[in-house]
């Protein structure tokens, strides 16, 4: 049904997002619709097309960052990889928007704010009360830890955190897969090549 509708629609898009929008016309409720959407989103990270897109974008971004800044700091690489991953998410999830916005605004400022807040709180409040409150909610503490791990999910409800985590895990898995493939390939290339680059390019391309 959805595919039929997509054929009728004038747009050439066959991406899952458009299929999902058209499915709304059929008798799907918000609850099951939302669940389908979430599952599709998670499965999307496993598709080869997504890996393709991500790898291409990652390589381009790495090359660009390489050209702009001569240093090859691993943090930079990591940040570019995360940013490109967030872009691949197409802004539907919270963690992706959090990654993108955190890069735009300086991360250092945010950390300073957090430190100042913590210090202020500890000075104003009495120490005894703080200690008592820390030990009580074991489950909630774990939830907080998870919220800290997933970017942009510090103050979310349990179900929302679970949703974000599932999408984030799927995305991370794809990221690891692509990056391992790239590093393996480049490592092989580095091991194999020994001629100067320009010559190699010219000689190899010309048949």
């Amino acid at each position, binding site marked *: 049904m959805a595919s039929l509708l997509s054929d009728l629609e004038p747009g*050439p898009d*066959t*991406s899952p*997002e458009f299929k999902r929008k058209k499915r709304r016309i059929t008798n799907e*409720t*918000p*609850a*099951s619709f939302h669940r389908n959407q*979430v599952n599709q989103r*998670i499965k999307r990270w496993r598709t*080869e*097309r997504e*890996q393709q*897109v991500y*790898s*291409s*974008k990652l390589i*381009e*971004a*790495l*090359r*660009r960052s*390489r050209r702009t800044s001569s240093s*090859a*700091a*691993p*943090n930079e*690489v*990591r940040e570019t990889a995360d940013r490109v991953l967030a*872009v691949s998410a*197409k802004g539907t999830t919270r963690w992706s928007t959090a990654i993108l916005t955190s890069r735009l605004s300086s991360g250092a400022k945010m950390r300073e704010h957090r430190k100042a807040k913590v210090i202020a709180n500890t000075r104003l409040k009495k120490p005894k009360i703080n200690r008592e409150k820390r030990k009580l909610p*074991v489950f909630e503490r*774990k939830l907080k830890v*998870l919220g800290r*791990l997933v970017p942009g999910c510090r103050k979310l409800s349990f*179900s929302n955190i*679970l949703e974000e*985590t*599932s999408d984030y*895990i799927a995305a*991370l898995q794809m*990221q*690891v897969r692509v*990056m391992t493939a*790239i*590093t393996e*390939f*480049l*490592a092989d*290339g*580095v091991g*194999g*090549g020994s001629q100067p680059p*320009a010559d*190699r*390019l*010219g000689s*190899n*391309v010309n*048949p």
Partner: protein
Amino acid sequence: MFPSLHSLGSCTYNGMDLTVLEKQQARLKWLQQQQQQQNYVVQNNAHVELCTSSVPQFQGLLGSSLCGGQLVELKMPEVYLGSDDFHKFVNFSVAGPEFGVSKMDLVMPEAAADYSISRTSGCQMTAFQTAVIKEEGEDVVLEKMESTTGRESFNKRKAKAVADYKCKDKKIKEVEAESEVKTKCSAEVSRNSSKEKSKASEVQKPDYIHVRARRGQATDSHSLAERARREKISKKMKCLQDLVPGCNKITGKAGMLDEIINYVQSLQRQVEFLSTKLAALNPSVEFNVDNLHVKEFPAYVANFPAAAKSPAMANLACLQLNPLQKEAVNCILDATMHPPGTATEGIASASMLIPEQALGSSCVTQLQPFSTWNTDPQCLYNVYNMGFH
């Protein structure tokens, strides 16, 4: 139907309970019949007439030397059951688009009740008035509930009414009526929205999540909402279990959370490690990538005649294309934000935006055939070529 009720009314006070039960049964059967016809207005009017018909019965009973206090007692059970019947009745009749109709009909019983009041006399009137007022009040409450809180609470109340009715049936030992009610209720619901009977399931309606109370479970709105929330959470946990490897044995949210945290941390550590590796390899990326691709996939060399540039030209182009390449990347990013059909199409469309001085049109045509990703390097070669020209 009504003559039979009048005959019931002729029973004495001793058989009061029986008459009430029989009346209830009769009403249910009558309701069932009426429901099959799907004529709600008639039902309402008829039910009202039932109320009115009950009044002369009480009048008759009064005549058989019952004092006012006793009469009040008499009245109350009848009224109590009657009001519940009415509620059930209302619950059954009000459904979906017919809601408007039934709301109007709710006004009717009040008018008829007034009429019935005018027929009564003395203390009887006061008792019946209280009963009617009670009915009216509950109707109003029901109306208000339906208007303010919407279908969600209404359906929950429906479930509650069904549950309450079930409990009462156990007390009165009317198993038949219960099954009737169940089938009626479920039939009614199934007419509106296809769902399972007498089991907890989520009714699918546009705005709200409807949960049916299971048999023997609490039916107030709080526990229903809690149950719905818990089911949602358990579904999400199952989904996470599929993602995180080695979680099948672990039951319980705390253990699962631990596993999830460990897994996310391990994935992030892996990414860090890979990024350091990439950073180490990065200096040779630009020059090695194209070489690697060309080496390992000579078949594709023929497809990229535009790549045949002199080495010097290539280097120059590499440097000069820096700003253009940025544009290319931006275009790619933009293109993927507004999803294209395939990755290659996106790249092609992105490349179209860049001035043709930088890009050879041949490059675009070369990219078209690459619609599938057999191995990683093919795509990398594509992209590199696209970026390089």
